[in-house]
């Protein structure tokens, strides 16, 4: 069968109609966008239909982050529509963010008519050129008869294999021309694309070898990442079962939080630069590391020369280019996490009956010794609110609700990862790979649209939230009851912390003067604003925030100089963590470490 007769040709429509029809066929219910000259025909078509709900953001970066939040909390493809030129360039940060964090998106960009491309026409930008390195794939559609095929393919590419953002650039004449609509190939994910067919089924022999290693290991450790979450809720369920069956300890990356319930015994907390002591020490000391859907990112590994020197490493990933990229592994397994986990569990059941497994008692003893350091301890003594305390209380007061957390980037993000605990996947949306300040607010609105009944909270820093503060207007317009929990230290805290630790306490440009009054700001946008300044009032403020029906900004005024610990200083290994401020003088950061970001 050829590619062509998989599609069935239907009727003649204009390009804009084709776009909307394709979106409907792809079950797109929400579209985040911002209009402009090049996309007016598409907006006209949006006006004439009721299936796809268009959310008018206030900046195209906001549209992309909102679509990311929507995608990550629902598992669906997020969809964006922006105009040519500045519309497209404004979307670039969001696209890069989605690429780094493997978020499935389709972003439609307007373009000047084909006959003007290359002429420096009004609002022309080389969108496919600009977005080539920050998308998984992109297309320029030059013929309306290719349009529906390309759109269906864009969705297929965005969600298949390692997910990512796809741009479809649409010249204005193409969306006005008439052409044929073809339906999506049937069994959308099952069909063979002519070139792009990621391997999903792992090599069973390798799975069996992996399970042999499981049985032999005396100090095993699961190290899981966002790949488990991207693989779907079933993967998280199977992972949980596998951890329970094997009794192995487990840690996750920032992106992987929630794929295994943090309330379980085997959970060691997050790994990496601001991960827990026990997780990092276990990474360093383990004899078998089982990486599922994580990518040995530098925030996780620390100094590669010192990284887990005595372990055999298994790496399961759907993206071949993630394997052996940063860390050389002993057993690479290419495939989808969910399928691989099923196979491993199956093999484990068979093999563990026949063969004795190693005793893990002394490993667990070691781990509980590390745990007893209580690396996340902090002291809330007087009335000055410690940021950790604020987030911990937020967790305690909302943990039994259907809570979704987004964050901005900085100290508050790391404290959120440490103190807010997740028992389910798709509940934690943060910008991990790119570290984009301004992500959390628009992401939260996207999450809320995907989960109308959920309690959606952006744990924010006061500097970050200003980067996309205009989206408050979107939140109010669509009556989204998003809660913005600003951990306000008046500093770009993470920058200030690095300046304290690495640059002699010279706080160059990391203090924000003339911050807005966030309470009045909230009110100006037509939402509720609150402020809390004393530790004793934190609980009642949180309760008031969550019991308010509409959107709220809660400005939590916290200790300005608190640092985020534990911390692996740049250039150090996992076993060289700083546990608190009293630790820092002992280990000056090496010159090699200073260069690192």
């Amino acid at each position, binding site marked *: 069968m050829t590619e062509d007769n998989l599609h069935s040709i239907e009727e003649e429509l204009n390009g804009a109609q084709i776009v909307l029809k394709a979106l409907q066929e792809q079950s797109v219910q929400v579209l985040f966008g911002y209009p402009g000259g090049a996309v007016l025909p598409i907006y006209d078509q949006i006006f004439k239909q009721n299936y796809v709900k268009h959310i008018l953001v206030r900046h195209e970066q906001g549209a992309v982050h909102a679509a990311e939040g929507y995608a990550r909390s629902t598992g669906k493809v997020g969809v964006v529509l922006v105009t040519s030129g500045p519309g497209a360039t404004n979307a670039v940060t969001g696209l890069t963010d989605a690429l780094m964090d493997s978020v499935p998106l389709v972003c439609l960009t307007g373009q000047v008519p084909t006959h003007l491309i290359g002429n420096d026409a009004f609002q022309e930008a080389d969108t496919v050129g600009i977005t080539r390195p920050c998308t998984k794939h992109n297309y320029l559609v030059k013929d309306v008869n290719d349009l529906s095929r390309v759109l269906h393919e864009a969705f297929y590419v965005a969600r298949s294999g390692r997910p990512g953002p796809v741009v479809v650039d649409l010249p204005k004449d193409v969306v006005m021309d008439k052409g044929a609509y073809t339906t999506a190939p049937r069994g959308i994910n099952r069909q063979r694309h002519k*070139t*792009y067919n990621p391997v999903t089924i792992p090599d069973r022999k*390798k799975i069996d070898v992996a399970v*042999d290693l499981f049985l032999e290991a005396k100090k095993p450790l699961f190290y899981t990442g966002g790949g488990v979450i991207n693989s779907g809720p079933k993967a998280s369920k199977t992972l949980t079962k596998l951890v329970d069956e094997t009794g192995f300890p487990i840690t996750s990356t920032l992106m992987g939080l929630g794929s295994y319930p943090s309330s379980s015994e085997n959970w060691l907390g997050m790994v990496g630069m601001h991960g827990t002591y026990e997780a990092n020490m276990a990474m360093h000391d383990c004899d078998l590391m089982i990486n599922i859907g994580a990518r040995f990112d530098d925030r996780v590994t620390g100094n590669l020369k010192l990284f887990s020197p005595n372990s055999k490493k298994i790496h399961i990933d759907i993206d071949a280019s993630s394997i052996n990229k940063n860390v050389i592994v002993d*057993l690479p397994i290419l495939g989808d996490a969910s399928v691989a986990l099923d196979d491993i569990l199956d093999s484990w059941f068979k093999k563990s009956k026949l063969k004795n497994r190693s005793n893990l008692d002394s490993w667990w003893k070691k781990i509980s010794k590390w745990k007893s350091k209580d690396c996340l301890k902090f002291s809330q003594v007087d009335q000055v609110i410690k940021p950790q305390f604020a987030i911990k209380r937020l967790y305690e007061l909302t943990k039994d609700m259907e809570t979704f957390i987004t964050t901005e980037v900085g100290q508050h993000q790391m404290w959120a990862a440490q103190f807010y605990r997740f028992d389910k996947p798709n509940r934690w949306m943060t910008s991990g790979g790119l570290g984009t300040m301004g992500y959390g607010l628009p992401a939260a609105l996207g999450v809320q649209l995907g989960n109308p009944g959920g309690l959606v909270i952006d744990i924010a820093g006061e500097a970050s939230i200003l980067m996309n503060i205009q989206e408050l207007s979107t939140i109010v317009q669509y009556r989204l009851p998003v809660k913005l929990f600003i951990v306000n230290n008046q500093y770009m805290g993470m920058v200030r912390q690095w300046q304290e630790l690495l640059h002699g306490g010279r706080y160059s440009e990391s203090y924000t003067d003339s911050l807005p009054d966030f309470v009045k700001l909230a009110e100006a946008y037509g939402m509720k604003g609150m402020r809390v300044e004393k530790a004793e009032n934190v609980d009642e403020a949180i309760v008031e925030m969550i019991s308010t029906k509409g959107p709220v900004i809660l400005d939590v005024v916290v200790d300005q100089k608190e640092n985020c610990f534990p911390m692996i200083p740049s250039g150090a290994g996992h076993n060289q963590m700083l546990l608190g401020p009293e630790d820092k003088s002992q280990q000056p950061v090496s010159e090699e470490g200073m260069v690192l970001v």
Partner: protein
Amino acid sequence: MSSNLYEGSIPPAIFHDNQVFSHTISVIVDNEAGVLARVVGLFSGRGYNIESLTVSEIDKNSQLSRINLVTSGTTQILEQIKAQLGRLVPVHNVIDLTSKGPSVSRELALVRVDVKDDLIDELFKISRIFTCKIVGLDKNSYVFEIIGKTARIDAFIELVSQIGSCEISRTGIVAISISRDS
């Protein structure tokens, strides 16, 4: 310890080796707009070397192009390059001709040598040894066409550039494996 741990994959010891190798890689791609930019952008964006690059359509009907490139790096880098190329959407196939067994590679160069009268005999002697054709001539300048492996062309250029000043135009490598299965 399990014996077949590394079956079908490159053992870590080889990845840990820091020796740099030069590999010839062919990439079969859909001949669509921007595909070359994608491949080249991948190399520049990730800091890989391209020592030689040739591109041409090889199948009009199915609109396939073949990109031949010579790159160098450690085994880890070379494997990374192939994996990165392999996940580009319009890529059909990535063939590492250097590691896949016998292959042939050829390059064509046009070399114009501007030479003084007393050195003409010497120039012709060298061109005969290298069996290259004269494909153009003007007063005291000769354009030679030479086809062969890169090293042979390098050697020819090295010799004639000692005789007169040269202008050089080279195609870069085209390569193909000898047997159908490799």
